[in-house]
Each structure stands twice: as C-alpha cells, then as structure tokens.
C-alpha cells in the first residue's frame, strides 16, 4: 500500500516503515503511528519562525511533532526531526486542547513548524479544522516535498506557508537532503504562490549552496518578486558539525546582487543581523523594523505602515498578508492576567 503524503510515495505494505517512519498500513488505510503527539507547544512572535509579511506583530502558538522525510546533513532540529520513538518526550494533545491553549495564551494564530507537517498530516489537518471553527489562522513551515494531492489539501487549510528551498540543484538535494528529485518542490512553490501567502527560506551552507543564490532569487522573482526570501546562515550541526562557521560578510556579498532581483531579502540566524527589517521597495525607507536577538527570523520592534498597508513615506503598496496585530491584544480577553490576591 502506497503512502501518498509526500513524493517519496513509500510502499508501507507488509509492515514496511517508510522513509519518515511516521505512518503504517492498517485496515487498508495509511494511518499515523503517533496521532496527536507533539514535541513542543510554545507562544512566540510570528517573526521568529519566520513569517515577516503575515500578521505582523502577532503571537503564534508554535507546535511541532517528530520525524521528517528528509535527512538534511546540517539539520538544526535533528534531535526532534530525526529522533526515534521514545527518544524524545511527546505531549498527547487533542486538536481541541491545542486550540484551547492558543486561546488561553493570547495567541492570534497557530503554526506547525519545528519539523515537517507532512509526516503528521492527519493530525495537522484536525488541528486546522478545529482552528477554523475558532477562527484562528493556520500556517506551517514545510520542505515542500508534498505530493500534488497533499499540496492541494495544505493550500486549502493554511493561510500562510513558509517553504524551504534548500538548494537549486539535483545534486545538492540528493547529497545533502537525501531526496532524489527537487522538481516537485519547485512545482509546489509555484502552485502555492497562486493560492496562499508564501515566504521562502534557504539555509546557506558556505561553499556548498551559496553559488545558487542568484538562481534561487531569479526563480522566486519569476513567480512573484514580492515573495519574501529568508536566507539563514547555517550553524555547523548534526552531520556537519565539524564544518567551519560560515562567513556573514561573504554570504552577504553574494546576497547584494540578489537584492536587485528581489525587494524582500532577509538574512538571519545570527545575533544582531542588520538585514531583518523591511524597506520600502519604492523609496527605500525602513518601514518595518526588526531585531535579530539570536535565532531564525527576528522580533518586530516597529511597524510604520499605514492602515491600508501603504508606505508612510511614499505611499507604495506593501505586500502584507493579514492585519498588523498588537502582541498583547488578546491577553485580557483570555484571562491570562490574574488580578491578584
């Protein structure tokens, strides 16, 4: 029996585990081995995930499960993504409970990240349904290797999606992530860009995929030059922990040319990055200011757009999905502030 959640299309017949080891065949159906199990749930800034152009300023309930369908040599979450059952603690939480936690912690939306949602797809869809009933926008971070069928479903339940485009060659993907063909990822990016708010993330491994910076920028621009592109400096982790720390200066030098192709290029995953703010593509003024306090993405510290999402300096329209949201706008209503003794 074939699993059709991602392009591996594993045969799970006769108890075969599949690449991600998260599904099995039961009664002629593909079912999750660990439904509704999560390794983390956490309230955080949406910009830290990162989403820079969706619901700016909002508080996100970040959730994630375990497992992955890739084996990226540099994975920074390998202790979760590549862990075996029992190796990492998991919470058993119903979709109702997750949405209830989002309400009680004053969150504005829910995002599945940390690991690949495709490997816990039915659970994720249940959360998405529960979130829809309670009017919580849903987003996710994905490696984009879903089948067309899964992509259609993801597109219908998620408002905003951050897709990782890890390289731009068959050779890179084969050698460093383990998948045979990266064309489905390009196909899914093109498709999702038509129907959803998308942002793209590329982890840069110096001397391995930094030669593709311009090609990736051109690919994104060919779809929509307003798609935000997050470039991460990779830390030496997992199977590449012996690699040197990459050079910020050299990667940034390569990004300089790409900035002429795409207006929203962000460069982070190191403290103090000065490339995490949004500048108006028309007049160049800083219109959304963020700091990188360590980690991916950043924290928004100043939002200057007008109510209709226009630049306050020149009036240019800026692509933002959803409304600017005040960080603590739901704290009072959901009662996490206790009045005292």
């Amino acid at each position, binding site marked *: 029996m074939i699993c059709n959640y991602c392009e591996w299309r594993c045969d799970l017949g006769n108890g075969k585990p599949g690449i991600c080891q998260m599904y099995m065949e039961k009664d002629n159906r593909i079912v999750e081995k660990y439904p509704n199990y999560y390794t983390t749930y956490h309230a955080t800034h949406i910009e830290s995930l990162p989403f820079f152009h969706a619901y700016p300023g909002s508080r996100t309930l970040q959730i994630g499960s375990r497992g992955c369908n890739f084996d990226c040599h540099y994975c920074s979450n390998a202790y979760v993504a590549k862990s075996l059952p029992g190796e990492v603690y998991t*919470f058993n939480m119903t979709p109702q409970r997750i949405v209830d936690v989002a309400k009680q*912690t004053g969150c504005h939306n829910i995002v599945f990240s940390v690991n690949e949602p495709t490997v816990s797809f039915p659970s994720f869809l249940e959360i998405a349904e529960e979130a829809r009933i309670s009017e919580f926008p849903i987003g996710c971070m994905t490696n984009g290797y879903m089948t067309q069928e899964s992509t259609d479903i993801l597109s219908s339940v998620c408002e905003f999606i951050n897709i990782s485009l890890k390289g731009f060659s068959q050779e890179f993907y084969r050698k460093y992530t383990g998948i045979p063909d990266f064309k489905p990822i390009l196909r899914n990016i093109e498709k999702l860009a038509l129907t959803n708010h998308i942002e793209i993330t590329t982890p840069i491994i110096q001397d391995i995929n930094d030669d593709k910076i311009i090609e990736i920028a051109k690919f994104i621009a060919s779809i929509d030059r307003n798609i935000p592109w997050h470039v991460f400096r990779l830390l030496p982790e997992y199977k590449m922990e012996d690699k040197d720390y990459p050079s*910020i200066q050299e990667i940034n030098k390569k990004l300089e040319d790409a900035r002429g192709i795409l207006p929203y290029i962000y460069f982070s995953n190191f403290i103090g990055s000065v490339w995490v703010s949004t500048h108006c593509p028309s007049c160049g003024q800083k219109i959304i200011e963020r700091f990188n306090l360590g980690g991916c993405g950043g924290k928004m510290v100043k939002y200057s757009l007008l109510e209709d999402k226009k630049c306050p300096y020149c009036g240019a329209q800026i692509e933002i999905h959803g409304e600017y949201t005040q960080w603590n706008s739901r704290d009072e209503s959901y009662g996490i502030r206790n009045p005292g003794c």
Partner: protein
Amino acid sequence: MAYAILDVREWDTVVRMDTGEPLPMNSPKVNTPMLDMARQVIKGHPYPGDFSSKSIEWVTDTALRLWKTYDPHFMFMIYAQPGILGGVKYMTPDRWNSLVCRVFQNVNRFIEITGYIPIIVGLGDMVPLKEYIDLSGLDGIGYIRMPNRRYAGFYNPTDRDISRFDRMPGIERTVSKCDFINLFEPSDVFRERLPDYLIVAKEGYSFKTLGTSSRTGYKTIAKNEAIPVYTGLPNTEINSLVDLKDTVIKNINHQRIALILLDGIGTKDFPGEYRLCNNSLYWYTYCQGDDSYFAVSCGEHFQHSDYPPGWLDFTEDFEMKTYPYDGFIEKPLSGSIGNYLRTKMGITSAAAGSRSTFTHLSGGADICIECCCCGLYNYGTKAVIYKTQAS
C-alpha cells in the same frame, strides 16, 4: 549608557542596550577605548558553542584576556557547562567526572595565573531525571521559565486541575498566589506577575509544559538546601547565598577578588575543602536560574526581584520592550554587584561566562563577555560595556 558588541566571528555590530538600536560604525560612541578593548577580546575569543569541549577553557581564556587588557579589581565568572550539558547530554559517570574535573582545572588555572582571591560557589548538584510532570493535559496553562525546571506557574486552574495536582506523583507542593504572598511578602512587581499557582516538583522530577525545550533530558537540578562555597578570604562568614555580595564588598578594598559561579556542581562533586551555605528560603530552594544568579549578585532573596518563577514572561515581550537583548529583563539590575562596585566604590570589574545574558545581568561588571546561546544554539559572542569611559 550601556552598549553591546554582538560578534558573529568576522562580523559584528554595536547596539545600545536600552533600545537595541544599532549604531553606525563611524559613531564616536562605537570608537571608544573601552569598546575597542572589548572588541579585541571577543575577536580573539569567539564562543565555541555549548556542546564544544572547548567552552570550559573559553571562560578561563576570556577572563585571562580581560585581566591582561583591563586589569579589573573584581572578576565575575560563570562556568555553565556542567549544568547545561548535564541536563541534555547522556554522560557516563567517568565522562561527568572528567567534565567536573576540567571545570576545576580551569578555575585553578585562572586563579594561579592571576592571583585573585577566589570565592567559588557550586550552585547545586544535578540528579538523574526520574520522570517528567506533564501539565499539557490540564485545563489551565502551566508554564516554566527556563532554566528553572522545578517550579511551574499555573494559570486559570479549574477545580478539576487543583484536584489533579494532588494526584500527580512528582509534585511536592502547590502554592496559591495568596499563600505565596503571605509567606514571602514579595516586591510589588513580583507580586503582580505571580501565577495563580506555583507548582513545585520533587527532586528528580521536571516539568513538561508550554515553553519547555524538546531536547531530551538526562539530569535535572537537585533540591539542595545548602551549596558548597570555597573562599580564600580569611575570617569570613557566609551563611547564605545572599551573603556573597556583602562578603565581596567587605573585602574588596584589601584584595582582588574573583567570584566564580559553577552551574550543576554541588557538594557531590565539589573537590577539596568547602563550607556550606544556605540555598533556600522557607520551602523555596534555589534552582541555578536567574533566581540563584540574581540572589548572589544583588544580595537579596528571589522574591525581591521582579521575576517570579512560572511568570508568563512572553506576555510582556511587546514591540517596544526595553533592553531587547536581555530576554525577559526590562532594565539592568541596579543592585548587581558590578554596578555597586562601580557606582558606590569606584572599583573596576569584568565578567566572563558561558551562561549567556545572566553573565552581564548578574555580573553588572564594567565589561562583560558572554556567549549568545539560545536553546543551545550558538548565535555569537557578546560584550556588554556598562562603563563606557576608561579611567
């Protein structure tokens, strides 16, 4: 005005600590002798990462460089590796012993080379993790403020939750906000931020709930009512960890002192002679988090700070939160030992530590060098300069 240099090896930026605003490289504020000196120190000593075997040596090497270049009268140091690695990395007893041994070799190396009179404090033992206490299935919200894993805040409890607390085997006690206030008489801000309930884990247990790390735990913080202190100062009385600041102040005019804090090391592992010092107040035992650091540095028990355990700190992480690079802290600790020495006694100080922001927050020294790690990811090295003019 305090500044920080955020260094990511061959690239750095200078920011104002209060607003986080980056300063242009040609700003006169960026090009002072103190900032130049700090930049030279971090350029020569990029943090190797929490998992690197060199991170223990890094503390000593960085402190030695500060001593050579700044020559402070007071040195504040934190060796965090036993607490950090003991928690998340499986270690055989031999490997653990060699880690502890390496920490003390490095402490001794610093003392022998520099001649500072040491006060060495083992902040507490690590014990094997027996089990997690999972709060995710309750009706209200449980929260722990890392790294304080023995105390969880609980918000919006239902009657059902309260009756379930009693049945959870790992819970030592549950304390309502009112009971806490009546016993501890905390500061106003602390009181305001207290959760509805504070839940205390028994020794060997650790909470799993909103905000906890998904890394697998192997050891957790012991419940140590007393912790070991060694000092080369004669005739000193140190009854509690809140006496350490006073001990430094009383003796610093006569000698150079290094106050050295060791995470994850208690009486089980502290070699040689030591005295015991009280590490608790009523039923509260310090947890090697901001509670321990701030109590040592400010000479006051934890409830006089603004930061209760289990406080939902993220709710106050607004856009314009001050001191954005200081995590949940919104202003420097005015009572920190370094600030006291600088402003009240005119004594120079420096700090080096592998406990990220706690190094400069609790050290409060003229110049502080620390790692920028979050979730054990190595995002760079930071120098915080509280004293911007060299004297």
